[in-house]
């Protein structure tokens, strides 16, 4: 199997390279300025793409390279640009595409894949002759190797889309994907002012504060970069503490990779308890102070 991998974020491309290289030869492409970061993960070749990346110029470069390089499969990390690029590339190739896969196994002529479906309610296991795939983020940790991949620069064509300006997001520097401990809050916290009562716990466990979709998007108690879930960040911390999160499937899909999950909820029948290793049923604002005290002792 010979695979071509693309992500504009080298860390995501590195994860895919790590995952796929057991099954064959893997070349990877990423943004030019970041290509060096991708050269330590065992890719046969690293392409550094120079130019303003848009859906059209990236996909056409991928299609040409895929054809010219005799690749069997094209993998793209599921990001905003990635999904657009993958869609366009598969259309241009006339090839089948399976999105958001979490597992991939190359067969004789067909590929065997798994992905979440129905908003994360089910896992769809499929076999197809598809050639293009988008990978759900956070499939595994990237592993460095001793050898270094050669970096080949490539120029992207002019896009039909003009970039007028770029404005950096007001970032609080939070990086949930890298956090070891996450304390995540849900609607059960009640209101924005109550977050102050959760913060001592965040401090006590030296974690990052995150939230469910309603908390981040609907009510905007937290900024959207702290949203965990199928439409937000997919996280894999060592410890995930869900505070007042009922456990809607859309949320579970974003934190399934966590090593240990603890849930605090007043509702005994909350689905989150089925997705947790440890749970406490009780009023949040009684449990949290006690827990913080116990941790301090």
């Amino acid at each position: 199997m010979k695979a071509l991998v693309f992500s504009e974020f080298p860390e995501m491309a590195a994860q895919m390279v790590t995952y796929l290289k057991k099954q064959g030869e893997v070349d990877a492409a990423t943004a030019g300025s970041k290509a060096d970061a991708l050269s330590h993960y065992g890719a046969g070749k690293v392409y550094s793409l120079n130019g303003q990346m848009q859906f059209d110029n990236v996909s056409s470069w991928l299609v040409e390279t895929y054809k010219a390089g005799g690749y069997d499969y094209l993998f793209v990390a599921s990001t905003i640009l990635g999904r657009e690029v993958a869609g366009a590339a598969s259309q241009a190739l006339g090839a089948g595409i399976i999105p958001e896969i979490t597992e991939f196994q190359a067969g004789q002529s067909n590929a065997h894949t798994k992905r979440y479906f129905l908003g994360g309610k089910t896992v769809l296991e499929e076999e197809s002759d598809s050639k293009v795939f988008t990978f759900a983020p956070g499939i595994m940790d990237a592993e460095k190797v001793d050898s270094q991949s050669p970096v080949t620069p490539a120029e992207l064509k002019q896009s039909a889309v003009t970039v007028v300006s770029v404005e950096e997001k007001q970032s609080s520097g939070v990086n949930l994907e890298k956090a070891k401990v996450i304390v995540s809050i849900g609607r059960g916290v009640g209101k924005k002012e109550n977050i102050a009562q959760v913060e001592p716990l965040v401090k006590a466990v030296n974690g990052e504060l995150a939230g469910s979709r309603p908390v981040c998007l609907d009510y905007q108690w937290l900024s959207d970069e702290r949203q965990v879930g199928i439409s937000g960040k997919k996280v894999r911390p060592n410890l995930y503490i869900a505070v007042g999160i009922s456990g809607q499937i859309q949320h579970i899909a974003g934190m399934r990779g966590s090593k240990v999950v603890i849930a605090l909820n007043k509702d005994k029948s909350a689905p989150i308890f089925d997705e947790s290793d440890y749970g406490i049923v009780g009023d949040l604002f009684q449990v949290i102070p006690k827990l913080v005290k116990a941790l301090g002792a």
Partner: protein
Amino acid sequence: MVDIIVLIKQMPDLEQVKPDPTTGEPQLKNVPLKLENLSENSVEEAVRLKEKYGGKVTAIIFGNEQSSAILKKAYAMGADEGHIITGFKGNNPSLTAKVLGEKIRALKHDIVILGNQSADSISGLLAGKIANHLGIPLLGNANSIEVSGSTVKVKRALEENNQIIQADFPVVISVTQEINEPRLPPVMQIMQAGRKPINTEAATLTGREVKVLSNKAPKSERKKMVFEDVDKGIAEIVKVIREESR
């Protein structure tokens, strides 16, 4: 005057989808269909653009015989014309792109609006596919849209930054959920929607086969130790937290 095509889809109400207790497969029978979340944002945005710049909103749905209720919802929200293409047989982005792409080609279009990633299949591929199929630019993940003359400018919300990007008509725009809050349709429009004609045609194209091996609720391998005695629970959890947060 802007000719806007809005692509909408139907989905089962996920809150009411439950796995079969024995097979683990989702039970979709009797689950009501609804207008997919981002399709609602798309219609809303199309109607807002029409209200601002004038023009016409045409909704297209690749669905089945039950899709007329979904299309009526789009009518109630302000769509002027609607087309149902029947023959949808399950998630197949390549086929959907072809079917919708061919229909769009047959209609006047300056802007094609659709959601960036649907709430049920979460594939997010259609925008790229449609744009590629039609050979026109994609302004993806738009948080806001502005039209001047025949140029469209959008605010593209990316993971690490926001871009202001633009392109000339015709364009495909995929929208985020944050772009607007869909309106409650006014009653007059709901009532008129029931009387608006619906154009229905059957899809003639077919797609490539994807073999589904299984479709089941994921199994959780968590320990599920739930404490109702708060103090006991805290004693146990403190140990775990100390272990894992080192």
